[in-house]
């Protein structure tokens, strides 16, 4: 397995305030991203996700630790030629039109003119902005900026794409489109690192994740390894049976008129409940086994901090 991005023991602190106090943002960050995977970088607000990405991009200089991109030093311009980056809350040159904006970045990579035009047309189509290509960016909505930002990150056909909160500020339809684009990138053999605090998105598309809390990586690995497949409890919605009768089997959570949701922690009691309902000629509406989700894992990790 080829490693594309590797961070080892990265530390960073900032001096803040009028009388400077040192505040450590990254205490010990180590993880590696393998070629061809979608790597999720998770953490609550202020955990140091963006700071980590900025270190990797050479926007800020870490106090200690090593960072390597494509097995080169991260500050080398040649390492950056194969890299794409979408910042969080993208702010761009608002006096440029969408097309000029992409053209500017294309020129920075020294892409020849004809090829640039072809790539820009393809990217505008990919992110669904063909109609707004002649509009100045100051007239773009938040979601459109996010899209043009993604297009900008892909202009050099990068092998590694770093996306900081790529799904922020998008409506549900937009999120899905961007998600599909990210999955498409993996199909093309590209590597994606995306940071987010929105767990569903990560759960849906990521192969591996790292969880950062308070400047330290608390856990990393394959999603399937981190989250146990074990069934935590089963939720059954029934009607036609009294709440008192169900109480011995588990917790009765909500009782809509006529319906009761029972949370049953033990697997062997499910059959007993079903038998009881059949006996009373009641009705079973739903039966949902709940496994651990990324959210459960995340909450468990963040809470003790």
């Amino acid at each position, binding site marked *: 397995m080829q490693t594309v991005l590797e961070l080892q023991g990265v530390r960073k602190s*900032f001096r803040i305030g009028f009388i400077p106090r040192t505040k450590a943002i990254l205490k010990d960050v180590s993880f590696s991203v393998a070629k061809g995977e979608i790597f999720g970088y998770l953490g609550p607000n202020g955990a140091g996700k963006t700071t980590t990405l*900025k270190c990797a*991009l*050479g*926007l*800020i*200089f870490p106090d200690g630790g090593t960072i390597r991109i494509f097995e080169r030093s991260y500050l080398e*311009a*040649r390492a*950056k*030629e194969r*890299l794409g*980056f*979408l*910042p969080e*809350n*993208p*702010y*761009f*040159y608002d*006096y*440029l039109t969408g097309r*000029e904006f992409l053209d*500017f*970045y294309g*020129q*920075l*990579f*020294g892409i020849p003119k004809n090829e640039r035009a072809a790539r820009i047309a393809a990217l505008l189509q990919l992110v669904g902005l063909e109609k707004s290509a002649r509009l100045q960016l100051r007239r773009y909505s938040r979601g459109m900026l996010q899209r043009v*930002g993604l297009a*900008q990150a892909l202009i*050099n056909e990068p092998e590694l794409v*770093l996306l900081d909160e790529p799904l922020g500020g998008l409506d549900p339809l937009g999120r899905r489109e961007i998600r599909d684009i990210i999955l498409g990138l993996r199909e093309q053999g590209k590597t994606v690192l995306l940071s987010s605090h929105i767990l569903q998105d990560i759960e849906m598309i990521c192969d591996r994740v790292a969880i950062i809390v308070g400047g330290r990586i608390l856990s990393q690995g394959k999603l399937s390894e981190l989250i146990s497949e074990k069934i935590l409890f089963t939720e059954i919605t029934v009607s036609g049976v009294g709440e008192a009768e169900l109480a011995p089997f588990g917790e009765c959570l909500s009782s809509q008129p006529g319906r009761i949701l029972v949370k049953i922690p033990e697997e062997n009691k499910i059959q007993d409940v079903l038998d009881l309902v059949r006996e009373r000629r009641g009705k079973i509406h739903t039966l949902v086994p709940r496994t651990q989700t990324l959210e459960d894992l995340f909450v468990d990790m963040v809470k003790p901090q």
Partner: protein
Amino acid sequence: MTVKVIALNTFKEAVRDRILYLLLFFAAVSILFSRVLALLTVGDRAKIIKDVGLASISLFGALMAVLIGTGLVYKEIEKRTIFTLISKPIRRHEFLLGKFFGLLLTLLVMLAAMSLIFVALVFVETRAVEWRLFAAIFLVFFELALITAVAVLFSCFSTPILSSLFTISFYLIGHFSWSLDLLIKKARAGAAKASLRVLSAVLPNLENFNVRTEAVQGLPFPPGLFLYAPAYGIAYAAFVLVLAVLVFRRRDFV
């Protein structure tokens, strides 16, 4: 190559900014106002037009350099556009040089526009195109290059308002530093005189770029000035830009 791309984008940014046209408008008003002043003058009217016109070009050129130059780098950091830029294969000094040359290109175009208005006005008055006037404008360009470099330097670490104040101070000091030489002549030999000498060597002398009196009055230009002044301007600007790169190289963009 990347320097050129960034420079052209900076030019685009400046040209699409309203403040530039506002300044150009007032420069034009100021140049044309010399015609009114000429009416009030007893004597050579053309001289007044030339004198006020050249002074306007120099002053408004400097204002453009200060007002646009001090915001250039700061805005990129403040608006976070620098994040995507630095993540591309660009070295930080290329970014700074791109910004500098972009503004220089803008100033060249603006200088050309102001000169056109000025020369047209002089032509209406005297029915002649005087090449001596272009010589004076030529030196103004090098002065602007130096001011731009200083504006970029301050813009690397401070806000536009403070940078503007600093750069304007630089401009004023530069135009009055010749009076130090008078002081040196009058000072008694000793520590005071030596320190004044050091000060005079370090401080910029922007009067090197001023041949307006000679151009207007038809006096001979100081010999060698057209080699010395541009060389002085370029060397000083290069020194200031090196300082800017040193400041900028290790800066964190948060």
